[in-house]
C-alpha cells in the first residue's frame, strides 16, 4: 500500500492537523505550562468558542474565523474574571493543587450543562465558502477545511510567541512563570500579570473554537476528547515553551496521520502517547523544557 503520494499526503495532512492542535493547545501552554494552573476546562472553553462562531455565523453569516478573532476580547475578560475567582478562592490560600483542579473540573461540567440548556444537544456546524473545497498541488490534496485552521493557528502561535518574547507584559508573564518573588521585587504585581496571562490563554480559545467547528460538527461534550491530547502536547513541548508546544503539536499530528494511513487509525493514540512517553524518558522536561 506504500506509495510516495500517500506518504506525502499523510505528512501534509499531519502538519495541517498539528497546526490545529497547536491552536487548541496554546492557551493551555500559557495557563498550565507557564502559570501552573491545571485548567482542565480548557477544551470546554474551546467549545464555547465553537458555539460563539456557530451562533454568529448562523445569524449574521460572518466568517467563523473572523468571529473567533472578534470575540477574543470577550473571552479575555471572562478568563481574567475566572482567574480572579481562582486566585481568591484557592491560590491565595495555597490550595490550588487539588481544590483548583476540582474547581476547573466543575467549571467544565457547568459549561457543558449551560450549553446544553441554552442550545440543546444537537450537532452544530457552520457554513463558509471554503469548507468542502480542496486545492491540489501535484499529487498532494489540501482541503481548505484543514488549511484555513492551519494558517490561522500558525499566525496565532507566532503572534503569541512574539508577544511573550518581545513586549514588557509578555516578558513579565515569562518572569512570573520562572520566579514570582523576583518579579515582585522588581515592582510588578504577579497576581495582575497572572490574571492578564490567564485572560490571554482563554482568549485563544475563541479562535481555537472557531477552527474546531470549521473542521467538524460540535456538541457540548465534544471537548472532553481533547483533554488528554492538549495536556500531552503541552508536556511534550516542554511546559510553557510556545515553540516547543507548536513542534509537539506538529509531531503528534504527523505521527497520527502516518500511523492512521499506514498502520490503521486505531493505532494512532497508542503510538502518539508512546512518542510522548519515549520523549519524556529521554528528555524528562520535554522537547524545549528547561532542565
Amino acid at each position, binding site marked *: 500500500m506504500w506509495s510516495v503520494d500517500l506518504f506525502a*499526503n499523510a505528512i501534509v495532512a*499531519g502538519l495541517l492537523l498539528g497546526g490545529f492542535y497547536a491552536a487548541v493547545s496554546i492557551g493551555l501552554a500559557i495557563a498550565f505550562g507557564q502559570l501552573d494552573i491545571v485548567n482542565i476546562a480548557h477544551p470546554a472553553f474551546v467549545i464555547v468558542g465553537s458555539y460563539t462562531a456557530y451562533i454568529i455565523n448562523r445569524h449574521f453569516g460572518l466568517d467563523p474565523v473572523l468571529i473567533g478573532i472578534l470575540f477574543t476580547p470577550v473571552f479575555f475578560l471572562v478568563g481574567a474574571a475566572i482567574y480572579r475567582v481562582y486566585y481568591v478562592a484557592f491560590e491565595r490560600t495555597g490550595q490550588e493543587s487539588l481544590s483548583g483542579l476540582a474547581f476547573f473540573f466543575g467549571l467544565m461540567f457547568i459549561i457543558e450543562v449551560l450549553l446544553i440548556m441554552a442550545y440543546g*444537544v*444537537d*450537532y452544530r456546524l457552520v457554513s463558509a465558502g471554503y469548507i468542502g473545497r480542496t486545492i491540489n498541488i501535484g499529487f498532494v490534496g489540501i482541503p481548505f477545511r*484543514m488549511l484555513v485552521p492551519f494558517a490561522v493557528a500558525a499566525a496565532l502561535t507566532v503572534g503569541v510567541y512574539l508577544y511573550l518574547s518581545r513586549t514588557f507584559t509578555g516578558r513579565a508573564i515569562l518572569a512570573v512563570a520562572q520566579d514570582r518573588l523576583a518579579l515582585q521585587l522588581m515592582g510588578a504585581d504577579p497576581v495582575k500579570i497572572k490574571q492578564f496571562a490567564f485572560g490571554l490563554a482563554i482568549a485563544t480559545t475563541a479562535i481555537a473554537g472557531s477552527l474546531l467547528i470549521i473542521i467538524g460538527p460540535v*456538541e457540548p461534550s465534544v471537548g472532553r476528547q481533547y483533554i488528554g491530547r492538549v495536556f500531552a502536547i503541552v508536556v511534550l513541548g516542554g511546559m510553557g515553551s510556545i515553540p516547543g508546544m507548536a513542534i509537539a503539536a506538529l509531531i503528534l499530528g504527523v505521527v497520527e496521520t502516518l500511523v492512521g494511513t499506514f498502520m490503521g487509525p486505531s493505532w*494512532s493514540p497508542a503510538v502518539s502517547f508512546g512518542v510522548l512517553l519515549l520523549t519524556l524518558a529521554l528528555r524528562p522536561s520535554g522537547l524545549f523544557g528547561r532542565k
Partner: protein
Amino acid sequence: MLKRRSFVRASLASGVIALAAASGSLLSFTAQAAQPIKIGFSMALTGGLAGAGKAALIAMELWRDDVNKKGGLLGRPVEFVYYDDATNPATVPGIYTKLLSVDKVDLVVSSYGTNEIAPAMPIVMRNKLVFPSLFGLAVNDEFHYDRYFQIMPAGPEPKLDWSRGFFELAAEQKPKPQTVAIVAADAEFPLAAAAGARKNAQAKGFKIVYDKTYPPSTTDYTPIVRAIQATNPDIVFVASYPPDSVGMVKAAHEVGLKAKMFGGGMVGLQFAAIQKNLGPLLDNIVNYDFWAPEPTLNFPGVNEFLKRYQEAAKGKGVDPLGHYLPPYAYAYLQVLEQSVDAVKSFDQAKLAAYMHRTTFKTVVGDVKFGKNGEWAKSRVLMVQFRDVQPDNLEQFAGPGKRIVVYPKEWKSGDVVYPYKK
C-alpha cells in the same frame, strides 16, 4: 327478651362492620384507581447520545399524554420516572436499581442505544421484568432473555441484517463490484455493524481489501479516506457515529473517493441538521435508515405523530424533523400499552407471552417480535440521497430526497450506480 335484644344489637353491630368494611374497600379501590402507573427508565439527556435521547424523551412524553387523555393504563394515569444516564453506561445499573428499589416503578423500558441498554439487562433479568428496548444492536445475543423486546427493525440477526441490504444491492450491480473496504469506529455499535458487514461481504463473494477501525476521537478523516482510496475498492462500507460520519463524507468529497458505492452504516446521516449542512455532498450515498417520508412508508398515524413531534421539538435543540428515532420511541411504548390493555394486568409473564405472539399496530407499521426479542423480519432500509440542495432543511421533510432502494417490499426507487460518475 334479653336474647332478642342481643340479637338486634349483634345484627346492628355486624351491619355497621359490614358497611365499614365495604366503604373501606371502596376507599382503598378509589385510592388505587388514582395511583399512577410508574414507568421507569434511564435516558441519555447529556453526553454524546443526548441529541437522540432528548428527542426520544419528547416522543415518549407525547405517548404518555395520549394515553392519559384516553384514561391511562387500566384506568390508572401514567407517570414517568427517569434519570439522565449522561451517555455513561456505568451510571445505568445504579439508575435501574434505584427505579426498582426506591421509586418502586411498575414497568421499565430502556434508555437509547446499545451501550446504555446492555448494562441494565442483569438487573431487569433478575427482577424478571418485561424490557421494551430502544435501538440496541444485538444486545440479547449475549443475554438470551425471553422478556426483551427491541423496537429497532434490525431483524432476527441484527449484526447481519444491518448491512445485508447494502451488500445485496452491490451484488446486483452490473458489472458486479469485486472489492470492498470496511471502516468502523472503535465503539460497540460500529464494531458489531462492521463484523456483520464482513460476513455479508464474504457471503456475497467480495474481496475485502481494507478492514480497519479508527478511534472516535479522530479529528481529520482525510488520511483514512486516502488510505482506503489507495486500496482502490469498488465499494466502501462505513460504520460510524455522527461526528465521524460528517468527517467521512467531507473527506470522501475532498479526497475525491472513486468508489462506486459508499455508505452503509453511518449514524448521523438520518439527522436533519447534519443533512442540511452536508447538502449535495450526500448525493448518491447509500445508507441504512429506518424511516423516510417516502410514499411506501406512509404508515397510519406516522405523519400525524411527526407533526406533533416537530411542534414539541421546536426550540429544544433536538432533531427538528425527527424521522429516525422519535417514531420508534413512541412505538415501543405503544407495544407496552397494547399489551397491558390486552392482558389487563401488569403480570410480567403474561405481558411477555402476549408480546411474543402478537403483531402490534404502531406508528412505525406492524411490529412482530421474533424469539430473541428482535423484529421477526428485518426492515433495515437502504436509502439513497438524491438531488440534495445546499443549506435547505425543508427539502428533507418531504419525499424525493431519500429514496428507499432496499428492500423490494418498501422500495420507492432504483439505486443510482456508480455513486460518483
